[in-house]
């Protein structure tokens, strides 16, 4: 007996068995789900989508094949869940459109419909990923074209389509590396094949056995990749700890008191957790939710009737065992470092320089905003070390640093650096391998190895060290003594450097430029130094400090 014309009733039965077969295998499909997000819900989502499609098919007049497929498309669209569900809805939307006028179908019509489905499905994605349900649909639709050309019998035709879908599914790991890594086929593709197989079984008049190779979740977690996917999440990051599933069977008297409104119910549940699914018909509500307090979700459901088929799983426990973590082990507190260095800077550039030299904590502060003892104490704690050195870099801060050091627990010592260059120089002497006393001596010794020059401006008229300084003019300060003044910062800098640099002894000049310094001036100063002191090595850093256009360090 051959079947050349497929009527609406047969098509509807095929669809229903396809949906039924998918339903029975949805957990297996969940277990395959590693792409695009390994959350193990592809089978569930496809099943919910397909069930919604099947419900519509049941409700429609089945005398017209076009109407049946239209009903399926409509149900799928309304019930679409997840990525795979949306794709499925598009496949059958195109399918239905191609045959909407046909009362009965030939194999050629069916092939056109499969092709139409693929076209529609591909149009709805910007960047189709091959090796997914899309590929399986495309390959089997392509095969159906040549099959339809030579085969008018539906049984042989559908058999051929299923064969190709099966081979295509087997090829998915070749196309999608993540599948190959885990050693599985694509879950969405498997879902589609399952529907096709159900349809074929209906034509043959067979009950379908479940798919033989059931991949269990345990097998899956052995796969290295899957483990990795789980590792991306920490057990502590699971916000809602219980996977809660239940059904509510409506009861008349309860409904009279609490009329059921699906949207409102969903809204209420959504406040309790995430991964929410609510599906309902005249008799039942089906709920899936990840909640922290599953009891609250159950109580909400109970307003409308009695609870059936409840299942609550502790996902934290599951996750813990999956990733092989020990139970409830908190991350050990970060271990204290042996040495910490607290220093004070003004300006972001100087802060970065200090950090690059090995400072643990850099307090922002300086001439006009000295950090308090409290600030320094905090910084010592923050350094989180057994032994801490403090570099105050300003004589006004040395006292506060001493106080903070006295108050602090553990070994804390102040290296009395009075300028930024001294602080930097001292840091160069720090050796993490050496003991506390050696470091202290070494660093303190280096303080006198460096000469500090600073350029700043006068805030009032003054007479000092034989110099007459007018308000707003620049002053050059060498080792704390004002020794140059001029209207221009650049000229002051030149004079100061001439005084400071001893060409026979000094080798390196480091310049830290302040926040308001003109790049042109810096270039001119550099050129001047190169001309004047031929053997001197010059390093220029953007210190970003306020008040001082230039800070010089001469070694």
């Amino acid at each position, binding site marked *: 007996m051959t079947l050349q014309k497929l009527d609406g009733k047969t098509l509807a039965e095929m669809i229903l068995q396809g949906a039924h077969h998918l339903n029975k295998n949805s957990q297996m499909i969940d277990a395959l789900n590693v792409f695009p997000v390994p959350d193990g819900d592809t089978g569930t989502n496809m099943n919910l989508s397909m069930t919604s499609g099947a419900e519509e098919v049941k409700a429609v007049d089945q005398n017209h094949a076009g109407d049946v497929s239209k009903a399926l498309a409509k149900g799928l669209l309304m019930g679409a869940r997840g990525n795979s569900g949306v794709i499925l809805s*598009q496949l059958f939307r195109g399918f239905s459109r191609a045959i909407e006028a046909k009362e009965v179908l030939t194999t050629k019509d069916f092939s056109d419909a499969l092709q139409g489905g693929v076209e529609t499905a591909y149009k*709805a994605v910007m960047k189709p990923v091959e090796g997914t349900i899309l590929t399986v649909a495309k390959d089997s639709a392509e095969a159906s074209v040549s099959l339809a050309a030579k085969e008018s019998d539906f049984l042989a035709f559908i058999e051929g389509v299923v064969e190709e879908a099966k081979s295509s599914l087997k090829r998915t790991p070749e196309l999608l590396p993540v599948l190959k890594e885990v050693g599985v086929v694509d879950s969405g593709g498997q879902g589609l094949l399952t529907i096709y197989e159900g349809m074929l079984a209906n034509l043959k008049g067979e009950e379908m056995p479940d798919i033989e190779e059931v991949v269990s979740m345990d097998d899956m977690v052995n796969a290295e990749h899957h483990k990795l996917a789980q590792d991306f999440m920490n057990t502590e990051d699971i916000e809602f700890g219980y996977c809660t599933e239940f059904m509510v069977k409506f009861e008349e008297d309860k409904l009279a008191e609490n009329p059921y409104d699906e949207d409102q119910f969903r809204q209420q549940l959504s406040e309790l957790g995430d991964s929410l699914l609510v599906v309902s018909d005249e008799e039942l509500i089906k709920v899936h939710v990840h909640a922290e307090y599953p009891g609250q979700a159950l109580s909400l459901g109970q307003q409308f009737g009695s609870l059936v088929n409840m299942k609550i799983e502790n996902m934290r426990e599951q996750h813990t065992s999956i990733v092989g973590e020990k139970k409830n082990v908190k991350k050990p507190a970060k271990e204290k470092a042996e040495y910490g260095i607290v220093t004070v800077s003004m300006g972001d550039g100087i802060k970065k320089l200090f950090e690059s030299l090995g400072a643990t904590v850099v307090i922002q502060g300086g001439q006009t905003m000295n950090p308090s003892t409290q600030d320094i104490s905090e910084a010592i704690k923050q350094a989180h070390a057994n032994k801490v050195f403090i570099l105050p870099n300003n004589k006004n801060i040395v006292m506060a640093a001493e106080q903070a050091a006295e108050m602090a627990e553990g070994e804390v010592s102040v290296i009395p650096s009075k300028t930024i260059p001294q602080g930097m120089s001292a840091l160069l002497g720090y050796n993490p391998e050496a003991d506390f006393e050696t470091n202290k001596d070494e660093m303190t010794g280096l303080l006198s190895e460096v000469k500090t020059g600073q350029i700043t401006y006068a805030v009032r008229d003054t007479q000092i060290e034989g110099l007459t300084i007018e308000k707003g003019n620049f002053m050059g300060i060498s080792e704390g003594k004002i020794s140059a003044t001029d209207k221009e910062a650049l000229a002051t800098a030149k004079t100061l450097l001439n005084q400071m640099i001893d060409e026979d002894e000094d080798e390196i000049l480091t310049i830290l430029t302040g926040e308001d310094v003109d790049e042109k001036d810096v270039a001119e100063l550099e050129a001047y130094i190169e001309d004047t002191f031929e053997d001197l090595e010059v390093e220029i850093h953007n210190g970003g400090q306020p008040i001082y256009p230039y800070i010089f360090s001469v070694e």
Partner: protein
Amino acid sequence: MSVDLNNKYGHITISNEVISTIAGGAAVECYGIVGMASKNQIRDGFTEMLRKENFSKGVVVRQEDDNLHIDMYIIVSYGTKISEVAHNVQSQVKYTLNKTVGLSVDSVNIFIQGVRVTSD
């Protein structure tokens, strides 16, 4: 703006541009998206389809306090279940960012700026 991470070897700075590119890349792989839209649609006067390569367009990364929020302006295909497509984009973007840069996103907000009706 950028996102900063610290580990025992040092400091990692990931610019917002990187985050938006990754988010955009993850989004366009989602089924049902046919394009990214610019945020200022009103100014453009019509939905401007952005080129596929320019993944970061239509993606706004915001940091408020310590929270990371992503706004995505997308165009979806007509006939798909828009809420579901949006949900898929959200979960995929969140997952991909977590996987590739170890960032936990606090919210992924989807703005459907257009629906493309294909002639079929």
